[in-house]
C-alpha cells in the first residue's frame, strides 16, 4: 500500500489530538472534523485543516459517515483514523471507506463483524476454543432477559451488543432493579451506538478486568504487547489502568497473551485491538469481548514497551510488517488515571462548564493527554473525560508515588473534577496492595471521598479571610470615593502593574 500523506481524524477531544501528534511526527498532514459544539476545541486548533460536520449531537455530526467521507474527499485525505468510540467499531463505515478509496486505519470490516457485535464475538470465541463468561445472545424482550437472569442467578451484567466503553452497561444485583436497568441500558446503547441490542452475562465473583493488547499486520503476523489491569471502574467505566497487572504471574501473562493472539488470529485481525478478559478469584480467565480499535488506556502500554501504538497503526495500514514478532518484556511500571469533569461526591455527576484556570503536572516521566485548555468550555454533549494522566517508574510502588505527586500538581478551576478522588485511590490500601477487583471503587466509595484534614481547613479559613480582605481592599480602591480609613493597599498597585486581577 502507498504511504499515507494526509489523515482525517474522525474523532474529538484528547484522542484526536493524540493521533494528530503522531501524524505530525511522521510528517503526515491532519484533517479535523468537528461538531458545532467543538468549534473552540483544542484538537481543531492543532489540526492542519478542520471542517464542521454538523450540530452537537453525535448522530448528526461524528456519526455522519456520508459527511465525514465527503470531507475526506474534499480535503484529499487518503486515510481516516477513527480513534475510539463513534465510528471506530462500525463495520459499515469501514466498507464505506473502502468504497470511497480511503484507507481506514483499523481492522478489516470482516474482523469487526466477527468481533464488533459482542454476542457474535462470544460465539466465534467459543468456536476458537477461547473460554467465555456464561451468558446469552442479544435478547429481544425484557421477559426473556429476566428469565435468564433468574436462571443463572443475580448478580448479572446487562451489556450493549453494539459497543463498549461502559455505555449501555448495567450491573443488576436485585431482581427488582432489573426492568429499570434493562430500559436505561437499551436507551443508552441506542444513543451511543445506534443499536439498542442488549445481552446478559453472569457476574463473576470478585472479577478482575485484565486486557491484552494485540496487534496484527497484513502479512499474517499477530503479536500481543502484554496486559493492562483495568479493574478500577465506576459506573462500569475505567478510572485507573496499569501495566503490568499486579496479579499476573509471567506464566499467566504468557497464557493470556497466547489466548488473545489466538482470538485475534481466529478473525484474521489487522491493526491494534484489545482482548478483554475477566479473571475470577481463582485466577481463571474468561474472554469478555474484543475492542477492535485503539483503547483509551493505550499510553500505559506505550510507557512500558516503548512502542508508539498510533505509529504502528499507521504503518500497518500502509502495509508494513510488525516491527516486533514477539511480546517485549515489560520495562518498569505505568499507571494511568482518567481525569473526568465530574463530582465523585454526587454519584459522579458530570460537571461541564468553562475551565477558568488550568495547571497540568510535569517533570520526570509524566504524560498528560489532554483535550482542554484554560478558557475552554467543556461541552455538555460528550464524554466527561478531559484528560488522561499517566506516569512511568521502575516499580509499581514508585509509580504510585509519582502519580500522587503529579495529581498534587493538577489544578483545574471553574469545573469540578475527580482529581482528589484519584489521589485517594493512590493512597487506598486495597489499591496499593494490588489485588483490587472490579468491586473495588464501589466498595471503597466513602473512603475514597476523603476525610477532611482539620489543619488544612484551619489554614483555608485563614486564607479565605486574607482573600476577602484583599478583595475588599480592591473594591475600595476601585471606588472613586474610597473609604479613607484604610491605608493604600499593595493590591491596588498589582492591578496597575498589569497583572490580570
Amino acid at each position: 500500500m502507498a504511504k499515507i500523506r494526509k489523515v482525517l481524524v474522525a474523532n474529538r477531544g484528547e484522542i484526536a489530538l493524540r493521533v494528530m501528534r503522531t501524524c505530525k511526527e511522521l510528517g503526515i498532514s491532519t484533517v479535523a472534523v468537528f461538531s458545532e459544539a467543538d468549534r473552540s476545541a483544542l484538537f481543531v486548533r492543532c489540526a492542519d485543516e478542520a471542517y464542521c460536520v454538523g450540530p452537537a449531537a453525535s448522530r448528526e455530526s461524528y456519526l455522519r459517515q456520508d459527511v465525514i467521507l465527503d470531507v475526506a474527499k474534499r480535503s484529499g485525505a487518503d486515510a481516516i483514523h477513527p480513534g475510539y468510540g463513534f465510528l471506530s467499531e462500525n463495520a459499515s463505515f469501514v466498507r464505506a471507506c473502502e468504497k470511497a478509496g480511503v484507507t481506514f486505519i483499523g481492522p478489516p470490516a470482516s474482523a469487526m463483524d466477527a468481533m464488533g457485535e459482542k454476542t457474535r464475538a462470544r460465539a466465534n470465541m467459543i468456536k476458537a476454543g477461547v473460554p467465555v463468561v456464561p451468558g446469552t445472545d442479544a435478547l429481544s424482550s425484557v421477559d426473556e432477559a429476566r428469565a435468564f437472569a433468574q436462571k443463572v442467578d443475580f448478580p448479572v451484567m446487562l451489556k450493549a451488543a453494539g459497543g463498549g466503553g461502559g455505555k449501555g452497561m448495567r450491573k443488576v444485583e436485585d431482581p427488582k432493579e432489573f426492568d429499570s436497568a434493562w430500559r436505561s441500558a437499551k436507551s443508552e446503547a441506542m444513543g451511543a451506538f445506534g443499536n439498542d441490542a442488549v445481552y446478559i452475562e453472569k457476574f463473576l465473583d470478585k472479577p478482575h478486568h485484565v486486557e491484552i493488547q494485540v496487534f496484527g499486520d497484513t502479512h499474517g503476523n499477530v503479536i500481543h504487547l502484554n496486559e493492562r489491569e483495568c479493574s478500577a471502574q465506576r459506573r462500569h467505566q475505567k478510572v485507573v489502568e496499569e501495566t503490568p497487572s499486579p496479579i499476573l504471574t509471567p506464566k499467566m501473562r504468557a497464557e493470556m497473551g497466547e489466548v488473545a493472539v489466538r482470538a485475534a488470529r481466529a478473525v484474521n485481525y489487522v491493526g491494534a485491538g484489545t482482548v478483554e478478559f475477566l479473571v475470577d478469584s481463582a485466577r481463571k480467565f474468561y474472554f469478555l469481548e474484543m475492542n477492535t480499535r485503539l483503547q483509551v488506556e493505550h499510553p500505559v502500554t506505550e510507557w512500558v514497551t516503548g512502542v508508539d501504538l498510533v505509529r504502528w497503526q499507521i504503518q500497518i495500514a500502509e502495509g508494513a510488517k510488525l516491527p516486533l514478532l514477539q511480546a517485549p518484556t515489560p520495562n518498569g511500571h505505568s499507571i494511568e488515571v482518567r481525569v473526568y469533569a465530574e463530582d465523585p461526591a454526587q454519584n459522579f455527576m458530570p460537571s461541564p462548564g468553562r475551565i477558568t484556570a488550568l495547571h497540568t503536572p510535569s517533570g520526570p516521566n509524566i504524560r498528560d493527554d489532554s483535550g482542554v485548555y484554560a478558557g475552554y468550555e467543556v461541552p455538555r454533549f460528550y464524554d466527561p473525560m478531559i484528560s488522561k494522566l499517566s506516569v512511568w517508574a521502575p516499580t509499581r510502588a514508585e509509580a504510585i508515588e509519582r502519580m500522587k505527586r503529579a495529581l498534587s500538581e493538577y489544578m483545574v478551576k471553574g469545573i469540578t473534577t475527580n482529581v482528589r478522588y484519584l489521589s485517594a485511590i493512590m493512597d487506598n490500601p486495597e489499591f496499593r496492595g494490588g489485588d483490587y477487583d472490579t468491586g473495588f471503587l464501589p466498595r471503597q466509595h466513602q473512603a475514597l471521598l476523603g476525610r477532611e484534614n482539620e489543619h488544612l481547613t484551619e489554614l483555608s479559613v485563614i486564607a479565605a479571610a486574607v482573600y476577602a480582605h484583599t478583595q475588599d481592599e480592591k473594591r475600595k480602591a476601585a471606588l472613586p470615593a474610597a473609604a479613607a480609613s484604610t491605608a493604600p493597599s499593595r493590591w491596588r498597585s498589582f492591578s496597575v502593574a498589569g497583572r490580570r486581577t
Partner: protein
Amino acid sequence: MGTVRYHAKLPGQKAHAPVDVQPRGGGRYAVTYNGKTREVDALGLEQGTLSLLVDGQSLSAEFEQGNELLAVLLRGQVTKLDIVNDRQLRMRAASASFAAEGKQLLTAPMPGKVVKLLAKVGDEVQAGQGLVVVEAMKMENELKATRAGRVTEIHVQEGQAVENNAKLVAVE
C-alpha cells in the same frame, strides 16, 4: 493599620467565628483565628490565586466564589465556607428569612436533557424513588426524591434541554 474582623462559617457549624486580619504592610498580615495568631505573607497572582506563606508554610491557594460559599482549594482539599466582613454579617442578620419548610424542589445538577419523567403531578412517591432521568455527557442520571410525599409541580417535559439549577420537580 487597624485590624479588620471577618466572620467564617464552615459547613456544619451553627454560627460564624471571628477571624481578625491585621495588615502590616508589604503584603504581610497577622491573622488571628481559633485563638492563634499567625504571620501571613500574601501575594496576589492571577485572579483568584494567592501565594501564601503562613508561619513559613508555603500554600498556593485558589479561590472560587460560588453563589453562597467561597471555595478554597489548598493542597488538594476543597473547603467551602461562608466568609463575610462585619457589614455583610449585619446585613445577613437583618434580611434573614425563614426558608419554606416541607417542600423539596428538585433542580438540575448540571446542564443536560430530560430523557424521561418517572412521575406525574399527584403521584405519591417514596424517598429514593426516581423522579426524572437527565442525560448529560452521554450518561443517564436518575434523579431521586430525597423525601416521601406528593408530586406537586413538574416544570419540564421529556426531550427538553435544561440549564444548570433549572427547576424540575417539586415534592411536598
